């Protein structure tokens, strides 16, 4: 009995970051629900989830990489170019599935390239993915797509369904986010590959000594992130019927990192779960939606977002202090 009490107290004494973020999200939700008329309506909640779906989908891929103690700054670039190329191919007369297959192959190629550079040449992921992201965008703009925006051809309704359709009354982007989250959760918690990714993030050398094929695993995690980026790209392109490749100059990739880190996936790797991504995405969604309804201008929204990110990183550092084991290149 005493042990159980101590256990509970321990749980509450040092709550996990996930729990803190969840509590903040609930508090924000209640605050907005009370102060803003219509905030808590089903319609608004659906619109809110819909607006964070793409961010959430990208975050599931980023989560896999970050748990493996990596970072994928090329994700948004891969998303934009692979989706825009798919649209360009469709405009050239190709049917949906071959065009999607080629787009996916392109995304995977960049993902594998990322993983190979990081695993075999041992370049820190920060620099490797920053560079490949620019290469991906450059090659895309130069060789693959004609303009900054790509548009689906007229009458591509099957394509538009991905982003604009509904399944049992729920918009498709939310469905895709849920499917991605459930799949990644299952992969991370129930499969050998998933457990190995945790091992890789926690202590790469120990994982290698245990017999984990560390290098192929790194390649896998980046390829997976690129795969998720492609899915997110299709969702984004079909939901507004255009792909704006300028999105690579936006803060989207940092928003993705914000969501990942916010929920408690440590940048030191080896910690966190998809639940944290969902919780983090919900908090961001609630904040952005509430501020949009309050008509706070977007610069002020960015300030609010960055303060939240900073707070999350500080809390992350407090809860998971840096030590020699989690130290990595590029930190100093």
């Amino acid at each position, binding site marked *: 009995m005493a042990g159980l009490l101590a256990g509970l107290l321990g749980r509450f004494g040092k709550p996990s970051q996930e729990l803190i973020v969840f509590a903040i999200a609930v508090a924000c939700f209640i605050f907005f629900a009370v102060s*803003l*008329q*219509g905030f808590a*309506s089903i*319609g*608004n909640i659906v*619109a*809110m989830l*819909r*607006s964070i779906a*793409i961010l959430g989908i990208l975050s599931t891929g980023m989560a896999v990489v970050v748990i493996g103690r990596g970072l994928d700054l090329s994700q948004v670039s891969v998303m934009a170019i692979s989706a825009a190329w798919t649209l360009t191919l469709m405009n050239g007369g190709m049917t949906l599935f071959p065009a999607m297959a080629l787009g996916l192959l392109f995304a995977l190629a960049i993902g594998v390239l990322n993983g190979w550079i990081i695993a075999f040449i041992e370049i820190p992921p920060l620099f490797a993915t920053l560079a490949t992201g620019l290469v991906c965008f450059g090659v895309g*703009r130069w060789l693959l797509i*004609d*303009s*900054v*925006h790509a*548009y689906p051809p*007229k009458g591509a309704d099957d394509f538009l369904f991905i982003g*604009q359709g509904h399944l049992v009354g729920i*918009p498709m982007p939310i469905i895709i986010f849920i499917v991605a989250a459930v799949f990644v959760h299952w992969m991370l918690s129930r499969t050998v590959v998933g457990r190995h990714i945790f091992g890789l993030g926690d202590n790469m050398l120990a994982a290698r000594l245990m017999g984990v094929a560390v290098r192929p695993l790194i390649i896998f995690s980046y390829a997976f992130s690129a795969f998720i980026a492609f899915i997110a790209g299709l969702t*984004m392109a079909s*939901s*507004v*019927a*255009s792909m*704006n*490749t*300028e*999105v690579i*100059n*936006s803060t989207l990739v940092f928003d993705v990192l914000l969501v990942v880190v916010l929920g408690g996936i440590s940048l030191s790797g080896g910690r966190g779960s998809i639940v944290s991504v969902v919780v983090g995405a919900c908090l961001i969604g609630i904040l*952005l*939606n509430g501020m*949009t*309804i309050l*008509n706070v*201008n*977007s*610069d002020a929204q960015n300030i609010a977002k960055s303060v939240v990110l900073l707070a999350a990183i500080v809390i992350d550092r407090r809860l998971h202090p840096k030590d020699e084991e989690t130290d990595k290149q590029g930190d100093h």
Partner: protein
Amino acid sequence: MKRNILKGLAVTVMAATVALAAGGAIAAGKISGKTERMVRSDFVDALNGKTVAFVPISLGLPLSDFWDAGIRDAATAIGMNYVVKDPAWNMNAMSQAISALISEKVDYLVVQNPDVQVFAKLFRKAEQNGTHVIQLNMASNYRSSGFVGVDWVSHGQEVGDDIVKQCAAKGGKVAIVQGELTAAANVWFNVGLMKAFKASGKINVVNDQAAQWDATKAHDITAAVLQQHPDLCATVGVWGIMMMGSGQAIKEAGKTGEVLVYGSGSNSRPVCDSLQTGILDKHYGYDSYLQGRDVVNAIQAMAQMKVEPGERPFALYTPIDVLAKETVAKDDCRDLMGKK
């Protein structure tokens, strides 16, 4: 005899008339002291081999691709050199490109400003250095040699007046989707809109967030606003391509046709497609290929009149075509032009 005298008189009068007319014609041709050949050779001297450089915010958009083609076609046709730099939406790259062109002393620099402030100093330096600066469609706070583009305030007012007409009787709730808060087009367009709204007193702006020229952001903002204001009458923004995102959100809410979507910008194929599918309701557009030609026309006049950079600032305002979803035709829009 009498007949002969009359005949002689008539011939004399006719001859005198012809002589006077001819004399008058010669006099008219020499008012400027130049024959047509001389004017033509001045034209060639003033323009042949001169360079016009164009720096848009980014190529690859319908708007800037049309400008690129318009300036290129018109400039090369009269023997000018044409250079274009594509900063791909990167402000540092854009600033570097402009600085490089200034130090190369290009003759005419055509720039689309992302912001009212950011290049104002560079333009002053350019004009002191002997380069004419023509600001295209989006001006800065610096009055340079010339401005070619939309008269944004009256443009915004025209759109605003139409919204007042459509919405005054329907509750008057309007959402503005801004582009970039500090971009000239955005600033002045909104001034015009608000002028019209305030004059009517019947419009209530329920939201005016910036989507940073991004259709996805415009979509999310509009989706949130619609939840809060299901009786919204219209949503309006300064760029049609961005407003397509807004239109998608309205379509998802099943309110296409109920909530009006107003856009503005270059009349390009995606705009006409969106009008036809009802994603946009009205588009106040212009032909940016012809704006490119306007730029070169202005350069031709400046060169021949030998004005110094910034000596006599002028503006050439672009006429606006209003396209509505009920009346839009295929020829109203230009097809996209790829890279050259």
